[in-house]
């Protein structure tokens, strides 16, 4: 198991370094990248199975006691979420390889290695039991994503990248301040020790630390009003990169929030979180409605959906936390798939603008079908995972008598449905655009379709397995809500 956890960090980093070294040899580089990402994904699968069978596993890095050194913790939360994340990266990389050398593709010489660094960052962020290492993981994710965002050097990317990197760097700086507060107040940055020491702090300090990290993780998660970096920057990047960002980046923020704020028992911040969640859901959905480009619509939806997860967390009930976790597991692949389909649309139509597309359902029914599944899921319609996730959060809300937030969640649901309809009517129905691209679409279409198909199949699998996944989410939530479990695992 030590090896398994290590592999999730080392394999992608190693493959990144090697792939960068041989970056001019297309096949070798791609093979190395896929090997690294695949190993990490495979290892995470093993981790899932082991943790499910044997319970949480802790790796003391370098053998140092948690009081001093760093621990990696594979608890049931990490073991549930991380495999989904790593599988997503792997599938997207397949798509990226199919799409390379097209105008919409990324530069494979850099994107492969950078994807490796990103993957290591994601693994580290989800596994670490140390607040400072979480900061390092955020740094890894930030720099690699910034390079992925801007490496083509287009003006729009650089402009959007500026907002992206400045806001996120400020958030990182705030993270450091937060570490200073935590260290000054408790003398440790180890999460397990913090679960003992933070609850004993004077109320003001405890809530101050909670609020501070709410701002830090909230910026990463793109909650209202800290989301501004997201909608401008995501649509400018190549599809595959946006797909990974959309699936993972903000989710790391919400993941960190679920872990930190639940473990530290920040229930008193619940109402604040719910207010922010409500506004985030609505503003994000309205933002999506305001757009007339597939990728921009989808980008704003990330924000709206973060609101649902935050709502589940903000309820601070077992059902709410479980709902938030299930939502996370559902949302990551669905969002990624939608961006991949967005990439297919662009690849086929030459654009993702709604006013320049139309009638695609008649010409490319397969793309329409690949879009319909995750879109219905995103809109929260049965029998897809989005329905279960939304259902879990909303029924938790009703159980907790959080009526205003339930109402807002339902309104946001209706707005989401409307914006998905907007894409459907604009792209798939309606008259053919004036200039139908008769030319053969560029790129390796079978490979792109296959990758998207795999991803759609993945979301369907998640829908089919929603029952066990919900049970696992409940387990993960239990582990988080009872810090004793986490503490025992780390400190024994």
């Amino acid at each position, binding site marked *: 198991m030590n090896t398994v956890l290590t592999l999730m960090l080392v394999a992608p*980093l190693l493959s990144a370094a090697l792939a*960068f070294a041989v970056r001019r040899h297309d096949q070798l580089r791609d093979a190395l990248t896929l090997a690294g990402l695949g190993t990490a994904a495979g290892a995470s699968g093993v981790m899932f199975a082991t943790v499910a069978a044997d319970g949480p596993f802790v790796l003391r890095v370098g053998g*140092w006691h948690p*009081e001093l050194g*760093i621990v990696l913790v594979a608890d049931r939360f990490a073991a549930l979420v991380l495999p989904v994340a790593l599988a997503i990266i792997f599938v997207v990389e397949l798509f990226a390889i199919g799409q390379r050398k097209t105008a919409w593709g990324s*530069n494979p010489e850099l994107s492969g290695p*950078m994807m490796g*660094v990103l993957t*290591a960052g994601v693994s580290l962020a989800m596994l670490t039991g140390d607040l400072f*290492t979480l900061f*390092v*993981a955020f740094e*890894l994710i930030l*720099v690699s994503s*910034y*390079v992925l965002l801007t*490496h083509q*050097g287009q003006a729009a990317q650089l402009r959007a990248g500026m*907002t992206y990197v400045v*806001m996120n760097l*400020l958030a990182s700086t*705030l993270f450091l301040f937060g570490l200073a507060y935590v260290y000054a107040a*408790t*003398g440790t940055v180890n999460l397990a*020790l913090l679960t*003992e020491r933070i609850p004993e702090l*004077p109320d*003001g*300090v405890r*809530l*101050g630390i*909670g609020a*501070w990290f709410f701002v830090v993780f909230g910026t990463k998660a793109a909650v209202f*009003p800290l989301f*501004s970096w997201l909608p401008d920057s995501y649509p400018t990047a190549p599809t595959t990169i946006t797909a990974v960002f959309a699936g993972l980046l903000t989710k790391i923020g919400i993941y960190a929030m679920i872990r930190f704020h639940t473990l530290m028992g920040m229930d008193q911040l619940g109402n604040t979180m719910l207010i922010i969640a409500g506004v985030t859901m609505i*503003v994000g959905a309205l*933002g*999506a*409605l*305001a757009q007339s480009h597939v990728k921009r619509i989808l980008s704003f939806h990330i924000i709206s959906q973060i609101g649902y997860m935050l709502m589940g967390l903000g309820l601070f009930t077992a059902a709410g936390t479980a709902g938030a976790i299930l939502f996370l597991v559902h949302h990551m692949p669905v969002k990624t798939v939608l961006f991949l389909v967005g990439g297919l649309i662009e690849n086929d139509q030459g654009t993702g603008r709604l006013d320049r597309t139309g009638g695609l*359902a008649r010409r490319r029914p397969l793309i329409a079908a690949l879009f319909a599944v995750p879109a*219905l899921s995103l809109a929260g*319609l*049965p*029998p897809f995972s989005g*329905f*279960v996730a939304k259902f879990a959060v*909303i029924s938790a809300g*009703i*159980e907790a008598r959080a009526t205003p937030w339930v109402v807002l969640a*339902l309104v946001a649901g*209706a707005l989401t*449905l*409307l914006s998905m309809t*907007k894409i459907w*009517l604009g792209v798939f*129905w*309606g008259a053919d655009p004036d200039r139908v691209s008769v030319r053969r679409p560029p790129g390796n279409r079978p490979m792109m379709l296959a990758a998207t198909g795999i991803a759609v199949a993945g979301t369907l699998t998640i829908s089919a397995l*929603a*029952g066990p996944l919900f049970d696992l989410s409940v387990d993960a939530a239990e582990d988080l809500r009872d810090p004793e479990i986490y503490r025992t695992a780390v400190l024994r």
Partner: protein
Amino acid sequence: MLWTLLIAHLAGIVVAGVAGRRGIRAGLAAAAIAPAATATWAISRLVGDADPATAELVWVAGLDLGVSFRLDSMALMMTTLVSGIGTLVFVYAIGYFSAGADGGVRFPTALLAFSTSMLGLVWADSVWTLFIFWEFTSITSFLLVGHKNTSADVLRAARRALMITGAGGLVLLAGLLLVAEAAGTTTISELGPITGSSASVAAILVMVGAATKSAQFPFHVWLPGAMAAPTPVSAYLHSATMVKAGVLLVAVLSPAMIDVDAWLWTGLAFGVTSMLWGAIGALRQRDAKLILAWGTVSQLGLLVTVLSLGSGKALFAGISLLFAHALFKAALFLVVGEVDIRTGTRDIAELGGLARSMPIAAAVAALAGLSMAGVPPLLGFMAKEAAIEAGLGLSGPERWIALGAITGGSVLTVAYTLRFWIGTFGPGPATEVAPRRLAMTAPAVLLALAGVLGYVFAGQVTDIVGPAAVEANEKASVYELIRWPGLKTAFVISIGIVAAGTALGWFLSARPVGAAPRTVGADAADETIEATLRFAPDITARVQHGSLPVYLATMIIAVIAATMPFFASAEIDHLVLWDRPLQAGLVAVTIVAAATGAVVGSRLGATLTLGAVGIGVSGIFVVHGAPDLALTQLVVETVIVVGFVLGFGSLAREFPRSSESWQTIRLVLSVISGIGIMSALAFAGSRPTGTAPIEALTDEAVDVGGGKNVVNVILTDIRALDTLGEVVVLATVAVGILALARVRADEVEAAS
């Protein structure tokens, strides 16, 4: 058996898709098989007397989600309607579409998918199963309404229908959650009366959800628009089955709602207004199909009115009406489709004299129309009699409301039915007609005859609808359909209704056909959607304006808010101003440098003051006994200053000027956040719950780490993982810079 049927349907969808590639007729024929089998099976069960078949599949146990079917009497009756009419509609569609029509794959598959969803809905024994299939029917309906999706009108109609039923679905979700919570079960057959504070809210929410699906005023506006769909769809979804889903929901939930006043009154409000407004709408239309569509709104209003009354008699009458309506309304729609196909128009101003050229269609329309008008010897008559009886059996204000509405609505129904028949088939210049297609005629004839047979075999029909009604209210068991009641109050009322309606219909038919009324309601619904779409950019432009400084200011405001709690634990006794006066001096220098940097206008000046801040900080490190840290800091500061200066390149020497008020805002935010952040740090350590393990670190660094320099051991061993991460960060940044430089170099090269 239920699973077998469901799987047969799913397989049928695939088969229809494959067959549809050879043309739409092949697809439709293939699609008809599964409903035909289901209908046959259901009818055989109707005759026999078997226990309810059940089937269950757990999906998400923790949330009680899953598929739970129970084929009770109500479900069996609905199955007969759904699959029976479904089979006829598939056959009819074979005649309706020309052989080379578009959509050979998607139309049959979508229609069969709808049929399947509808079966799931009527079989459901769990509120969540019902809800899941309810949503399926919304989606499949959307796909079918948008069949001819190249026209903007169709797209709007499809969107309107989806948004109204979709939003209604969300309201229903909330309502059902409350019902499940109040009743303590999600199993429909086990629902007992709910009470309590949330019961009224639940009742209203569920009723609103039902009203959107069953096209009740004011949500009815989607239904006339949905007539953009091919007529088989209109006949099947939007008159016979899907729009009955809301009505069915009212029936199956009535045991739970028996004690909830809000249920009755919400239902009456929807039902009565829809019955009257729908009938008036039907009288104003000139498109024969729209007359029927508005008539459906009215009839659904009647159903909701009667069923929400909740008494045994009302349930019996409501279920009988539902059964009768499905038969006669489907027949009428099929006739209109045939007229449309064979004459090329549905406008009653242009049509006329079809009784001679299309005698069978005229006869079908007459039989079905008479059933709708409630005239003997037809099924519709007996059902309406029962409804009036149910009204008469009430007491209190609802008696007069219900009776008045049923009577008024029925008069109007007779009138628009007559106007429809006269306008289409009555006297007038003979319209030219294309040859008859057997596939279109036969299903309509069967449905119309069913209305007659239903009258003849009133006892058998009672055996079908009676047990269904009993499931919703046990007291319904004593009622039966009566062929000839004799001169009782209800019958007198019926005679009056037919007489008044005929007179009104005759009078209106004699007048010239007016222009089609404007679609005020539908426009309002569209306008609401458009207004949302317009409102969205306004709001979005406010929050996503693109100004980075404002975004950062927003973040700073959030930061200030986050420092506030710390002040609640402010304890200043443990604070000391300085250990050594030198610290104060260094801090003063640092603050001055930072302040200068904030106001200085030139880029170089700002860079240099920033450097000075860094030097001040390294000074503080030195005072605290960390010379190595100070050295590192100095190097970093130097590199940064040099880097900035090199990077200025062609940039202007001065910063762009900003407005004075903005500068003030920034200044205020900076000062407040600075004080907040600093104070928070001071207060954070006021009552520490732990201390840094300094001794352990120094001991272990030497003993285990084998190094005398603790910092080095920390960096390279104890926290080596962090160091590795940061090294990768640096390498990544280098790669990124290299990539951008390469892009730039390529551009320069391309330019030259």
